[in-house]
């Protein structure tokens, strides 16, 4: 099930009514609420492919067992952690990367002159496996490091892994943030419900009014055979708008629905296209995931931990850690070389930025830095969105202005798409922020009612009969 399906509205209304309407108090109410949410999460996740619930249950049971084992046999913590890593990453490896690996090895052997006829593996990718694998691993890693006490309640742990608003496309929650919220009694509060609804509606506006419309133009351009580079670049700029609207829209719906259920999820985007540098970009884009990578991959590769105040690592080690973590980050997005290339590109940007900023005596004006970073980001999205390596080869082998006489109408039209799409995102974001800043103002209900009417009208007006999936479902 997805957030923009009509079934979801009925499903969520039911879950909300049962969660807040149950006539229980205290701990019994909390447990009952968690049972309802767990069952709802199973229905949400298994709606189309019930077999995928088996994988989710396996991951949950494995990490629950491993963390309980860590508490019981502290001396075996290392082995138990290894078991969790092998189990979770093994599952991810088989379902997400095995086909890619087999194909790539086959192609490499063929290129070396060996005659290889391996069958192509067609393994269905379970929705959200990358997200929940990283989420459940954060729990085990935190218990292993002693930052979190292992939970005895399987119900709470299972709900932490499968909480439906963020199960299939994040935010990637840390156990230390989400678990305590699931362990506290929760009561309905009208203001919380209202602000959750405001946020969820804004998320739906981003998805339906911006992302799905911009996608119409982006998809047309990326299937062109050898398009002029200017068209590809502007289409990538449009894709930058689309992917932000799509993914942050999903996150806002997730955060809004979770808030209505009494749970606060992590803020995942902080105006990423206003980043002034590559490192700034990663502090603003998909924050829950990039901070996960920073804490559990980058810092260990640097030989440090999050609480470590020791001397900074050498430049060489930092560079190695940057490439390692961003290559993993790229591969996390999908089993394809273009994602590896995208990770390597961002790692190169970060490394280059560090070298330049350290030596540069003056700082460039902020608008210039934002502009340069945006152009760099857009080129990254070109790598991310391109159909195959031929596109990149074509771009690199063709003069940037080639085909301009045929390209300019499309380029100018795409300028319109980027401007209007980006404008709606910026303006809507500002309005939503103003609405949520009202907090205790007595006029907040008036403003929110008007905002809901506007958002719902825009959604009704712009919804396509062929709704497209959220982009990050593929990852």
């Amino acid at each position, binding site marked *: 099930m997805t957030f923009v399906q009509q079934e979801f509205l009925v499903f969520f209304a039911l879950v909300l009514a049962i969660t807040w309407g149950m006539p229980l108090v205290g701990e019994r109410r909390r447990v009952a609420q968690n049972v309802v949410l767990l069952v709802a999460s199973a229905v949400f996740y298994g709606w189309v492919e019930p077999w995928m619930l088996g994988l989710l249950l396996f991951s949950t049971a494995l990490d629950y067992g491993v963390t309980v084992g860590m508490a019981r046999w502290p001396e075996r913590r290392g082995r138990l952690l290894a078991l969790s890593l092998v189990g979770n990453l093994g599952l991810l490896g088989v379902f997400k990367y095995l086909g890619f690996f087999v194909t790539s090895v086959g192609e490499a052997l063929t290129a070396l002159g060996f005659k290889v006829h391996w069958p192509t593996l067609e393994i269905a990718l379970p929705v959200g496996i990358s997200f929940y694998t990283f989420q459940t691993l954060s729990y085990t890693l935190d218990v292993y490091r002693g930052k979190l006490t292992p939970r005895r309640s399987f119900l709470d742990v299972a709900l932490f892994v499968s909480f439906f608003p963020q199960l299939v496309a994040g935010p990637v929650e840390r156990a230390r943030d989400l678990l305590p919220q699931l362990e506290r009694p*929760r009561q309905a*509060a009208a203001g919380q419900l209202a602000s959750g609804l405001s946020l969820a509606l804004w998320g739906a506006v981003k998805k339906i009014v911006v992302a799905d419309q911009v996608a119409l133009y982006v998809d047309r351009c990326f299937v062109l055979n050898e*398009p002029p580079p200017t068209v590809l670049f502007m289409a990538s700029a449009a894709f930058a708008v689309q992917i932000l609207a799509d993914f942050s829209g999903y996150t806002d719906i997730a955060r809004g629905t979770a808030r209505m259920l009494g749970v606060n999820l992590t803020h995942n985007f902080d105006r990423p296209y206003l980043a002034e540098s590559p490192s700034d970009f990663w502090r603003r884009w998909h924050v829950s995931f990039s901070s996960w990578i920073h804490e559990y991959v980058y810092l260990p590769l640097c030989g440090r931990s999050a609480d470590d105040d020791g001397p900074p690592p050498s430049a060489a080690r930092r560079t190695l850690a940057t490439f390692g973590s961003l290559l993993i980050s790229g591969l996390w997005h999908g089993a394809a070389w273009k994602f590896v290339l995208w990770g390597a590109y961002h790692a190169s940007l970060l490394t280059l930025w560090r070298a330049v900023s350290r030596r540069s005596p003056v700082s460039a004006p902020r608008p210039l830095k934002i502009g340069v970073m945006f152009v760099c980001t857009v080129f990254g999205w070109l790598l991310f969105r391109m159909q195959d390596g031929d596109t990149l080869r074509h771009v690199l082998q063709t003069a940037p202005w080639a085909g301009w006489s045929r390209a300019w*109408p499309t380029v100018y039209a795409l300028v319109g798409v980027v401007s209007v799409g980006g404008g709606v995102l910026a303006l809507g974001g500002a309005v939503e922020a103003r609405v949520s800043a009202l907090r205790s103002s007595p006029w*907040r*209900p008036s*403003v929110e009612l008007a905002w809901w009417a506007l958002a719902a009208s825009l959604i009704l007006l712009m919804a396509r009969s062929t709704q497209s999936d959220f982009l990050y479902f593929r990852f």
Partner: protein
Amino acid sequence: MTSSTSASEPLDPWARPQPRALALGLACAAAVVGLMAVGVRALADQVGNPRAAQAVEQVRSGAPWIIVGNSVAQSVVDPARLAERLETDAVAQAAIDGALGPHVAALLRHHPPSPGATVVVLMPTHNLLAGRLPSESDRALLVELLRAPDAPLTSLALGGAVSALDLWTRDRDRARSGLLSAVTATPLRLVSALSGVPVRLDSALSELGAEAGPIAGPSGPLPGAAPGRPVVEAEELPPASSVLPLLVEAAEEGDFRLVVVVPFDRRRQDAPCRVAPEDEAGRWLNEAGVSVVDLRGAPLDPSAFSREFHLHNAGRAQGTDLLAEGLRAVAPGGYISGACGR
């Protein structure tokens, strides 16, 4: 959110909303919805559905030959080549992707071509005989083509008169399409004004090799649908209860000649001749005085097909030539067949 509220926590204005604030909020919400409804209506009046508008434009173009149908017609007919083969001034291509019989009837009944024109209806017979329209987008396209109430057609295709929801969907689709067009048309208009060269995005994209057709078409086929075939097949009606009598009536009233073409069929190329629904429809049309060209058994190279009824770009030239032969040979009310002659 917890059960307890600390003294430092801000008060929740939703817990006990002020009546004045609620009333103002509801008034604002009503105003927003009202403005939106009025805006949609106003915008819809100025904008047409691009798919329907293009077809109407072609039917009304004054061309002596007009091809009407769905994506099968688009894949079979090269209008310029057909005009050459028929030695006529122009052939207008008014085929609509995804169209079914009721859409063709709506097009010809509500936007009749010039008197004396020849209208060639080319679509698989099961599409032509379709009854109740199966999807929202099919319904929307039909409503878009109607200019006035049409009880015989809407009761057949929609199961009743056009509903308020159908009209809202039409207006909404038009408004959305208008808004999206404005987004890309505005910078293009500026550039066109400066350069003096009028430009359209769809034609610019076509020049770059993109598929033809409007980008922001609101009533595109449903996911998984092959062009020209809805996901849920429409029920096929017997010829006498289908849109065929309505088409004949439109031809008589509009004083244009109607020719129905049964398209090439990959399955029937090697199949033995047998009685098929097409034959029943053909007989009915012949009895009603309508010419039928049956291309099922025509000597078309099998490699020309891309799907059951659709041809590749490369096969279109051969398909157009064979169609031209059939159209040249058919006498009013006659029946020209391929291999499955009768």
